């Protein structure tokens, strides 16, 4: 079949458009990124990612070692071992699984091992399996880079970009998607052809720091206080490079694939903007619809959450007036007076800009955030805004 002729007419050449759920887009991304090791353990709502990968490996569609582990703790420990030996690793988890792996997350990040892992966000006890970002946001300080995808397309594209970023910096990356609203919801997704992905993301190059039986070394031995800080210093140098690299890789990706991604996305933000909703993940899409009726309201979508993209945010807001009201939307609860987004925003603006900011808790434990809730948030913000609002309690 002559692909060239027909494909040039497509919205995205060298792609195939498919209807698929978010979890399947994530699995597809792992395949086209040629992940070679997949340790797996089921947890709702992530399970269909590892099921789909098992199918792909079992059918021969994907060349990888797929291992059913005994827990998420072991999943991440096996991922660590494989990455130490130089493999491109992928796995996925959610909620309690992520919490259980917490110890290993630190080890992977501080061993400076590249890998990309999908987390399908859900909260902790009391039992709840629905959309919430408390799990991944509470792992902020483990050293992992964190991206939040607004759509299945964005999840797939972000996984591809994350391997470049992760392998360049030797820092692991989480790509987070919303439970059910994304994981189990079908959307149109453009799947790039394998050769197109190959051109952008070559096979993993060994750096010589991997374990190699021909050149025996000891990895991870007790580090004395004299040396310990140097490891953190080197990590700090590289974590400071994440934001710029994210934007650069996003630009490169745009050139190759035709879809543009940056650390943040500014929607309807200009000198006339009066209110800015600060969002992550699929709530952004709902808010985009609602602000069609509110020309004075803009959206600041945070795609790279950790490290928090301070410079990109300041740049996106450079034209807005100082009396603009910022509304942080929190689908998380950190057991604190304000949510994770508000904490990060305050830190980003400190000494740079002063904005009146309010914090809105909504969508907790998967509660739907339909357009009417966004309308309520905008109404509240305009009329006697309180510092902290729990919008779903009314």
């Amino acid at each position, binding site marked *: 079949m002559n692909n060239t002729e027909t494909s040039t007419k497509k919205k995205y050449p060298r792609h195939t458009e498919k209807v698929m759920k978010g979890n399947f887009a994530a699995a597809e991304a792992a395949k086209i990124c040629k992940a*070679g*090791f997949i*340790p797996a353990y089921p947890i709702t709502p992530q399970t269909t990612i590892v099921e789909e990968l098992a199918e792909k490996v079992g059918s021969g569609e994907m060349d990888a*070692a797929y*291992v*059913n*582990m*005994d*827990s998420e*703790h*072991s*999943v991440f*420990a*096996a*991922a*660590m*071992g*494989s*990455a*130490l*030996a*130089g*493999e491109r*690793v992928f796995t996925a988890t959610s909620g309690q699984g992520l919490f259980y792996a917490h*110890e*290993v997350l630190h*080890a992977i990040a501080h061993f400076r091992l590249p890998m990309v892992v999908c987390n399908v966000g859900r909260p902790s006890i009391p039992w709840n399996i629905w959309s919430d970002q408390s799990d991944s946001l509470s792992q902020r300080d483990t050293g992992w880079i964190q991206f939040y995808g607004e759509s299945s397309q964005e999840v797939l594209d972000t996984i591809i970009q994350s391997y470049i970023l992760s392998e360049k910096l030797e820092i692991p990356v989480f790509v987070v998607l919303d439970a059910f609203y994304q994981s189990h919801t079908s959307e149109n997704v453009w799947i790039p052809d394998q050769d197109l992905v190959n051109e952008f993301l070559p096979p993993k190059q060994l750096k010589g720091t991997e*374990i*190699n*039986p021909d050149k*025996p*070394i*000891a*990895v*991870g*031995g*007790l*580090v*004395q206080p004299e*040396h310990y800080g140097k490891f953190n210093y080197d990590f700090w140098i590289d974590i400071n490079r994440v934001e710029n690299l994210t934007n650069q890789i996003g630009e490169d990706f745009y050139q190759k694939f035709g879809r543009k991604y940056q650390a943040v996305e500014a929607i309807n933000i200009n000198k006339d903007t009066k209110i800015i909703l600060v969002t992550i993940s699929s709530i952004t899409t709902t808010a985009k619809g609602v602000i069609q009726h509110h020309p004075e309201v803009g959206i600041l979508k945070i795609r790279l959450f950790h490290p928090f993209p301070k410079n990109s945010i300041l740049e996106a807001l450079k034209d807005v007036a100082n009396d603009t009201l910022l509304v942080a939307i929190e689908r998380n609860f950190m057991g604190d007076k304000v949510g994770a987004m508000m904490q990060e925003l305050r830190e980003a603006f400190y000494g740079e800009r002063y904005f009146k900011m309010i914090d809105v808790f909504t969508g907790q434990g998967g509660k739907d955030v339909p357009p009417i809730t966004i309308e309520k948030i905008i109404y509240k913000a305009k009329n006697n805004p309180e510092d902290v609002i729990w919008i779903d309690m009314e």
Partner: protein
Amino acid sequence: MLPAMEFLIKDEKVFSGGLSCRGCGWSLLVRHLSSILGENTVYVVPASCFSIIAGPYPLNEIKGTIVHTIFAAAPATATGIRHTLDRQGRKDTNVVILAGDGGTFDIGFQALSGAASRGENLIYLVNNNGAYMNTGIQTSSATPYGAVTTTNPNSNFKKKFPKDLMGIIAAHNIPYAATASLAFMEDYRAKIKKAKEMEGFRLLMVDGPCPPGHKVEPANSIQVARLAVESNLYPLFEVEYQNYKVNYRPTKQLPATECMKLQGRFKHLFKEENKHLLEETQKVTDYNWRRLLALEKLSVEFVL
């Protein structure tokens, strides 16, 4: 009898200056293990005395690769390494876990069971010295009945018998599991060689001398290990697909007290008021031995 005319270790793979205590079993067992396995070996080490003995960053006591990993997941870390080396065409590389009893019987137990259940192609060596010795002698589920530790001090000594790890691991129906003692070096070395030649999940449990933890004179380390075998406190046997084989039968079984009296951790049991506890220990030791002989008779050929 003439002293041995040559050393067993022909090709030393361990550098001098290891950080073990005097009379510790780790150095001796690793010297023999590494000389047999060779340099094409990756050792995966969870938190244990050996984490320290192997040397701080960036040192390496062994001519071979060492990966220090988290306490609870050495077999899982090793699983990732194994599969990746296999995909790199390095099926010839040995991947070996070196763990203590705490990392095996307790915190690492799930990861051990997982790796054994999956039939991972790994060798697991547990140096069973009967307590968390690296942190300073705290009770583990491998701690013997009657022993004193810092978390079972004085009259609050350990009142439970250790769990039957060999029975549990044998129930995973793995190709090879064996006990070994540093006082029976030919037997230990033969078991390493046997394990090396096999594929699948293999486990060796070595009775680990620990002078500070057992309150034993360092010079008596090997003698105590020998008495443990001669008294049936620590029988030497191997299990292939749940088939037991006893490797050493004492010509005259010594009383358990012969081994225990050299260890300060059992000192209180020798008081008159605790005489019944020593008798209990002897009874359980005899029961375990009789049960082992019965298991040996049960042998059914494994057919795949």
